[in-house]
């Protein structure tokens, strides 16, 4: 045998396969890298949902507990009229505002507009202008819009008054029939600010990523304007659209800060959303078990809707 072959044989004979435990010990430094992360995750990210799952079947005030089985769920869907009223509210907000307005219609419009600007200097400027409102804290935006819709001094009513549209003046948030609609109107024209502002930018990035070959081919085939948008652009950014819609749904179903801050669910239950109901049950009435049950139901609802959206928003031309 050659010198090298002999050496190889010798080495091969010497190295045994390590057992699993030995492997772990040999690589233990990697586990140390993971240790701080996992400790923090175990305490604050794994334990709470399990605790929530568990306590959803108990009457619980945070200290003492008392097993009640499915009682919370029975109550939730048969007797808790507040909860039942909150569901359509959140669905209206979700479908009308989050899905159609904030994540589909307006951002696609804006993205297409900027995409079709010929001079890059302007496109960049518009993009920058869209980012700026994202900087303003959510609370300020909420309070700003609370002021805009303030019935006596707010900008909305005084604008309507000044333009002779007194008929349209309203109590806005204080009017039970208008309150939910007012929440939909907040952030008009729905192109910037917080999470809403992200969508046009992400869709724009997606459009810019469409290969020139496809764009040119479409133009040569005569697909222009709306036809091009519907048949070429949209299918090619379906990935981004899916992401934004799903994230929007997940956020909207859980969210309740605007409602908490501006109307506290009122007047009556006109703007009550399930998240707010859960918050009140847990932190104002100390019904933490029931609150956990509501949280669990919302979690399942989110899972369900996420699946449905992922399936529904499919396109044959994924890019």
């Amino acid at each position, binding site marked *: 045998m050659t010198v090298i072959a002999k050496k190889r044989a010798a080495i091969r004979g010497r190295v045994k396969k390590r057992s*699993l435990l030995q492997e772990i010990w040999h*690589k233990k430094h*990697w586990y140390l*890298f*993971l240790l*701080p*992360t996992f400790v*923090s*995750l175990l*305490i*604050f*990210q*794994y334990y*709470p*949902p399990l*605790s929530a*799952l568990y306590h959803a079947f108990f009457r619980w005030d*945070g200290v003492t507990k008392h097993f009640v089985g499915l009682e919370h769920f029975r109550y939730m869907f048969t007797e808790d009229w507040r909860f039942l009223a909150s569901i359509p509210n959140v669905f209206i907000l979700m479908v009308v505002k989050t899905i159609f307005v904030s994540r589909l219609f307006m951002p696609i419009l*804006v993205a297409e507009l900027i995409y079709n*600007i*010929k001079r890059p200097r302007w496109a960049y400027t*518009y*993009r920058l202008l869209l*980012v700026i*409102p*994202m*900087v*303003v*804290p*959510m*609370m*300020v935006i909420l*309070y*700003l819009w609370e002021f805009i819709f303030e019935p006596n*001094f707010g*900008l909305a009513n*005084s604008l309507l008054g000044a333009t002779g549209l007194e008929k349209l003046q309203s109590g806005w948030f204080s009017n039970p029939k208008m309150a939910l609609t007012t929440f939909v109107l907040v952030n008009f*024209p729905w*192109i910037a600010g917080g999470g809403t502002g992200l969508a046009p*930018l992400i869709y724009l*990035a997606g459009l810019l*990523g469409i290969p020139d070959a496809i764009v040119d081919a479409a133009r040569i085939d005569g697909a222009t304007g709306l036809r091009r948008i519907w048949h070429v652009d949209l299918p090619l950014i379906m*990935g*981004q659209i*899916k*992401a934004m819609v*799903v994230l929007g749904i997940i956020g909207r*179903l*859980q969210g*309740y800060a605007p409602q908490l801050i501006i109307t506290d669910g009122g007047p009556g239950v006109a703007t009550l959303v399930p*998240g707010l109901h*859960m*918050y009140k049950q*847990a*932190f104002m009435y100390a019904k*933490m078990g029931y609150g956990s049950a509501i*949280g669990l139901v*919302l*979690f399942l609802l989110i899972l369900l809707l996420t699946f449905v959206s*992922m399936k529904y928003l499919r396109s044959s031309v994924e890019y």
Partner: protein
Amino acid sequence: MSSLKHQTLPLQRRMALRMRRGDSWVHLAMIGLLIPTFYPFVALLFLSFKDNPQFYHNRWLLSFPLHFGNYTYALKTVSPYILNSVISSGVTVVGVLLLASLAAYAFSRGDFPGKEALFYLILSLLMVPGILTLIARFVLVKQLGLLNTRWALILPWISGGQVFAIFLLRSFFDHVPEDLFESARLDGANEFQILLQIALPLARPIMGVVAILNITGTWNDLIWPLVTVMNNQTLYTIPIGLTLFRQAFWTNWGPLFAGYVIVSIPMLVFFVFSSSLFIRGIASGAIKM
């Protein structure tokens, strides 16, 4: 006459004219959308300089003289909130980056039993919505005796920021060529040194993105501070502080709006310093399902 005129122009001029004309609708539409988008903020600014008589007289335009005093008055109430937000979010971001870079590096470059399983375990946390965990996490924090302390905010925030940070950082590290690390290993560096001296400096842009996302999330978080720090006003961050502020200053319009403006400034400053990082990160087109 007009169409004939254009037909006699050289090709370039005709193309230029066509391009400029086609664009104007788009610009009109964009401006039409941007004006109502920005006007509320402009109005906010105008309103913040008014005293009450000016406010009741005209709500739309700037009134002179400008009352800068509104700002000094509001600042007294609002500055503790800003300070608290800076401290709480700042410490959180440092914690998140620290823990997440360690973990992301291990997932990316390490090779050890159970690596992928552990990674998916972490990713699966993304499926768990905040609403499920709010109540239980509150009780946990209470049982740990951390209620009404700054740690009640910082520790859960650090924990919550891990998942996404690890995800982003790992995919960054995955794309760094192995040779860089190989040569360092040959020189005898241990993994920790490699992380510190090679991987981290390279990862600055993506760490910037993680930092920005994290700061924005914790800065604007209302519910968690509301629930855990409610009884300790000295720790109030901007979101909760603003609720108090709004109650106290309602109908004291000038200072009220001045307060809103002041409280927006830190983020504005932060964004100006990190805007290029942010846009680069988003425009990479990597956010899709």
